[in-house]
């Protein structure tokens, strides 16, 4: 137990009655590599409510995808290993379940959408068969029933001429259409939670907009929780309710999306927001965060971001900042907003 962030998560969820849909607590994942033990996820805690979109924002190697794989139970083990923590889904710890129990949750209750739809679909089976398989395996539907449901689903994700295309193979669809099929597959069993890992990164911008709109609309309709894993600050701003910013396996900042974009309370978040060029105005030189993310086998003792941080002091190098609740200018705590920075106040208000 390296992170004392659990308590903070609790008071965040205290405002809503009952347990959250998903509650990840102090999750730790390691990978055993040639160079040593890489701490990919290092005490991550977050929660998602039904009907809510949580964006997990981070660059490659931040541990955002590994966390999702741990939730889904599709982590490669070995080399991966869950070193600690709990993943409570509707109050039950997924990590304590048997493989058979987890299989029931996977697909049925929690579904995942991947970045690369082409490699996530089986190339030798028709799209209709793969969609229908969900009903046959989980619901015991007949072949005919399954096909009818598959067409229904394809209609639902607005694939034109679903009836004619149900027997087509994945490669016969365009990238955007394949991603719709992935969404249809995720939706098939009406799960309570969808994890979307960079769902639109591989798509062109006009298609990306179509797919994101569809996903948001379906999420509202089915009141699902959505975890959107992405590095795209634009997509996050467009659809997220809350965000968790990850860096080197830890959540450095979390809170309401508008608040964080308006007033980031962690130097990393601020740096990210300042480093992207704007479409709507021509800026001068971009702010660039210097250096590179730390190697996960040799994380700094203090704040992982300190070697790249303009604000870092001796304190940051020696002592790792724990997440603290951020307060507004009057000193009142902001619900659900935390920052893991010794100088969050200066970052926020300065």
């Amino acid at each position: 137990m390296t992170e004392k962030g659990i308590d903070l998560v609790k008071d965040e969820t205290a405002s809503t009655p009952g347990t959250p849909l998903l509650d990840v607590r102090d999750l730790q994942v390691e990978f055993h590599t040639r160079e040593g033990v890489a701490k990919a996820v290092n005490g991550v805690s977050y929660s998602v409510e039904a009907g809510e979109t949580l964006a997990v924002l981070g660059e490659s190697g931040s541990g955002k995808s590994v966390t999702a794989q741990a939730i889904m139970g599709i982590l490669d083990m070995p080399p991966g290993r869950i070193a600690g923590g709990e993943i409570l889904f509707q109050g039950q710890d997924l990590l304590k379940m048997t493989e058979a129990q987890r299989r029931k949750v996977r697909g049925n209750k929690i579904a995942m959408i991947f970045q690369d739809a082409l490699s996530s679909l089986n190339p030798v089976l028709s799209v209709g068969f793969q969609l229908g398989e969900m009903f046959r395996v989980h619901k015991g539907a007949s072949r005919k029933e399954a096909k009818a449901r598959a067409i229904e689903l394809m209609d639902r994700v607005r694939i034109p001429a679903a009836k004619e295309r149900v027997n087509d193979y994945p490669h016969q669809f365009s990238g955007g259409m394949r991603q719709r099929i992935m969404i249809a597959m995720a939706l098939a069993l009406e799960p309570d939670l969808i994890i979307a890992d960079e769902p639109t990164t591989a798509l062109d911008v006009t298609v990306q907009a179509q797919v994101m709109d569809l996903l948001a609309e379906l999420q509202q309709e089915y009141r699902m929780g959505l975890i959107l894993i992405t590095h795209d600050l634009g997509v996050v701003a467009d659809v997220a309710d809350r965000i968790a910013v990850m860096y080197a396996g830890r959540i450095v900042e979390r809170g309401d999306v508008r608040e964080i974009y308006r007033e980031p309370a962690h130097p990393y978040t601020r740096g990210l927001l300042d480093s992207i060029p704007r479409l709507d105005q021509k800026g001068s030189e971009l702010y660039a965060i210097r250096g590179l993310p730390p190697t996960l086998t040799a994380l700094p003792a203090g704040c992982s971001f300190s070697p790249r941080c303009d604000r870092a002091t001796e304190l940051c190098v020696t002592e790792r900042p724990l997440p603290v609740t951020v307060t507004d200018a009057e000193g009142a705590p902001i619900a659900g907003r935390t920052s893991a920075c010794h100088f969050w106040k200066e970052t926020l208000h300065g």
Partner: protein
Amino acid sequence: MPDNSLAGDQHTAPVAAVAQAEAGPPPGKPRSLWSDAWNDLRRKPSFIIAGAMILILLIIAAFPGLFTSVSPRASDLSGAYLKSPELTKFFSPEWLGYDSQGRSIYARVIYGTRASIVIGISVTAIVLFVGGLVGMIAGYFGGWVDAVVSRIVDTFMGIPFLLGAMVILVSFDVRGKMVITLALAVLGWTTIARVMRGSVISVKQADYVQAARSLGAGTWRILLRHVLPNAMAPVIVVAMIALGGYISAEATLSYLGIGLADPAMSWGSDINTGKDQIRVALHVLIFPSIMLSATILAFLMMGDAVRDALDPKLR
């Protein structure tokens, strides 16, 4: 996407990457893909075992006299006819017993090594050179050159390997190592050509080849500096595995009596001799067979280990 972990995440700085762009002392020594592969191999038991076996085989093939003092042709029909092995007398002439002509099986096994190793290595060398060159040209230039070469390769691939070798060898009166080597090479180069062609096609589309072209690099520079070094890995692996196959082919041909024959020494022909006394003296058959299998196994294991070490997906 099961490999979206650290290793699979394309944009992750390699775990051992240089830490900072501007500052910091350079840690560690320069590494290349080959030195990485070597580091991997050194720790692999299968590689160490196979390597040791191959090393011993090479020494035996080069200096058989170091291992036994008797001639493999010295026969003592009266005293040693089908004499059973004396398994406790290590490395003595009687260790593995005697054959039907009273010759020391141990000496014959030792002296038979050279034929297998020499033929295996020479065939592989020829095949690598010819097949590699043809495959590289076909793969790099593409178009009609590739179409013509590929059809020729297909034609050769259509010939059953052993049957083809038999047909070729039967037409020679004297069948020495050279003839067998050539016969196997004529039929074997297509495998390498195919692998090399595929490998070159995938490498030539790499951006670094385009980059070299846009610098104005000539064809030979591109082929030798950019394409060949990057296309070699799968070819070497296939060649190592094929080497075992050539040794087995030589033994098979010699066994069938159309490869090496007396007075030349070959495990294959010794196995042939042994098969006649299989009920009374199994050892005549068994020891050359063990040696043959062990040799082939050593090269296959080596090829496997090298493939694993060079496989970029495991990097």
